[in-house]
């Protein structure tokens, strides 16, 4: 008997150049490229993952990075069942945007599960991160993952955690 399959929309948001597209690509295609291409608008990918009693087809909306010129378009978040917020472990400036992003997301999607991805763990020696700050997010119900799109570390785990919390 085939497992039932449900489709869910998941959005990946975060400041520009933190590796959102690389994380999605690592998760969907299991590949990584050093070349940087900025995302304009949104890039959509899909991947099916097996959960305990069902399959979940994630439609991954990789939304363009936010900066001082480009803010997050709320309409892209509409209908999402889960949100991933990605920041760069080597750029403290990106940490400062976490709260603002969470607030923006909560305005549109107050109850959806969220995970925080602190990317570029392969450059851990260059990280300028206060671990205590991360623990605070975890205590607020936002799981934190130290990921590396380059090595693939914790990427699958982060997506699966979000998928399970969606169910």
């Amino acid at each position, binding site marked *: 008997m085939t497992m*039932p*399959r*449900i*489709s*869910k*929309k998941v959005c990946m948001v975060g400041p520009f150049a933190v590796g959102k597209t690389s994380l999605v690509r690592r998760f969907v295609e299991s590949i990584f490229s050093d070349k940087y291409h900025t995302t304009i*608008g*949104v890039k*959509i*990918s*899909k991947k099916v993952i097996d959960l305990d009693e069902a399959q*979940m*087809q994630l*439609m991954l*909306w990789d939304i363009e990075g936010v900066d001082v010129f480009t803010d997050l*378009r709320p*309409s*892209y978040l*509409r*209908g*999402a*069942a889960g949100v991933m917020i990605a920041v760069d472990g080597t750029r403290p400036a990106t940490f400062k945007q976490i709260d603002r992003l969470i607030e923006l997301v909560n305005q549109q999607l107050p109850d959806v599960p969220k995970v925080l991805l602190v990317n570029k763990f392969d450059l851990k020696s260059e990280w300028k991160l206060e671990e205590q700050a991360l623990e605070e997010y975890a205590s607020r119900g936002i799981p934190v993952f130290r990921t590396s799109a380059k090595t693939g570390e914790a990427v699958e785990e982060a997506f699966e955690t979000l998928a399970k919390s969606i169910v």
Partner: protein
Amino acid sequence: MTGISAKEPSGLTVDQIDNAPDNEYIRLRKLLLGPEYEQAIKDYISRQSDAERVAAVLSQAIEAASSRDTALGKALAPVLNKAIHESISRNPSQITTVMSPIMGPSIRKAVATALSDMVQSLNKVLEQSLSIRGLFWRIKAWRAGVSYGRYVMSQTLRFAVEQVLLVHRETGLLLHSVVSETTDTKDPELVSSMLTAIQDFVADSFDTASGADLDKVQVGDLTLHLISGGNSVLAFATRGTIGPAAMEQIIGHYETLQQEFTEEIAGFSGNRDAFNGAEDHLKSCLLSEQLVPKTSRQQRPWLAIAVLFMLGLALVYNGYLGTLRTLEYERIVEALSSQGDYMLISHRIEDEHITAQMLRSVSGIPPEQLIRNIEPAFYDLQLDVRALTFGEIDVDKLNALELPTPAPEPTLLEKFNALAGLIQSQSLYFEKGTANLSGQSIETFQTLVSKLKNVSEIAEVLKPGQLQIMVQGYSDRVGSRINNLALSKERAEHVRDMLISNGLSADTVIAWGLGYRDLGVEDLEWQRRVAIQVLLPGVSINLSNSNASKLGMQR
């Protein structure tokens, strides 16, 4: 029935009537009829159960409710669905038994329709493919980098709906999609999400009226139409220009679909199975309209038809002439072969000329007369006649030919006679159906060559320049006369060529084929042979073995 709550036609129970304070009519009836009436009413009501009373009026009630509005149908639909589902689950064979008489003809009809469509489609494709226009389209399709079928469709259709997607408006997730058979599509789920993103982008980026959505995207000859309705969007891709009637049809299908799936769309949580039933509605949206073909008489390829007709006639006439020629050729060969005073050595045919090599006896009619007798109609008959001076040509009698013998020098003549006798007593045999010497005959041939050389030397002394070595080819009785004649000639000529290449003079060797001759020997291997005769005018050849013994020779 306990606790019965009997009701009067007025709708009140008896007790209520009794206690009604201001119902004078009822009070009057009570005074006039007394307690017997009440008892009678109670008895009447208790005789009928509720079920019976409902059953008595149920059909009329359903009829009345159905004629009034559709509420009853809507109310009963889920109950009936569950009942049918339950019934099929419990006893699937029952529904099979009931449905098979209906489904059988339907399936046959569907298959027949599909086959008919396929034949028509094939016919159309063949027409297009084999025409100049088809070739032109093929080149265009190749240059445009699209498939031929797709290009043909673009040229023959006014419009065609290639793909229809039903999209959940809020999430952008695909609810269901269908695609036409001739279309190559990308992942409809990604298309669905991307369309929603584009809609969101447009709505965010431009000052659109509240609730207004993107309704059309055009790329080349492809147009993507988007119809928003409630919490879903119907997106369909078309090529060509879709008319208002077709657009109305699609909108109608979409509205019906929305009515049927209102709850499913509103409560969509990611499970698309609920929308499998939307397949038929979406397929109904895959409309297409063909360009009206030009049917004027000028379009008919009369010239091509005429050319084909003439070609056909020419082929038939050519076949007829060919048959006549073949019959004529066989008649001529037969006539030449059956001339008593002539012997057909060989013949060949080139275009309209037949050339025959023949040996003619001195008493034979002139060749010109022979040609006139045969009366060739289609061929120019040429005879290459060589007159023989040593009597009648009769192969059967040739071996026993006795000619007057002048007195030769005894020693040479004896040698010649003996050698000639040995040569004539030996035949060369061939493999079946070929001009290849059999294994043993190759050795025989070598001994014959040396004997023939000796004979030639002796003949030069006895009668210089008058020796004739006659190589006669035969075939077995299997096969047609003409084929056998040709094969026997081929065998004779092969041996002649071998003799010449082994040093014998080409002027002395004559070869011809005699086909099959019934000499009373049934052995087929024996019949496939070449016999060699040595002729020297004025010399009678004795075939007895005593001649060989004179020379100490063995076969």
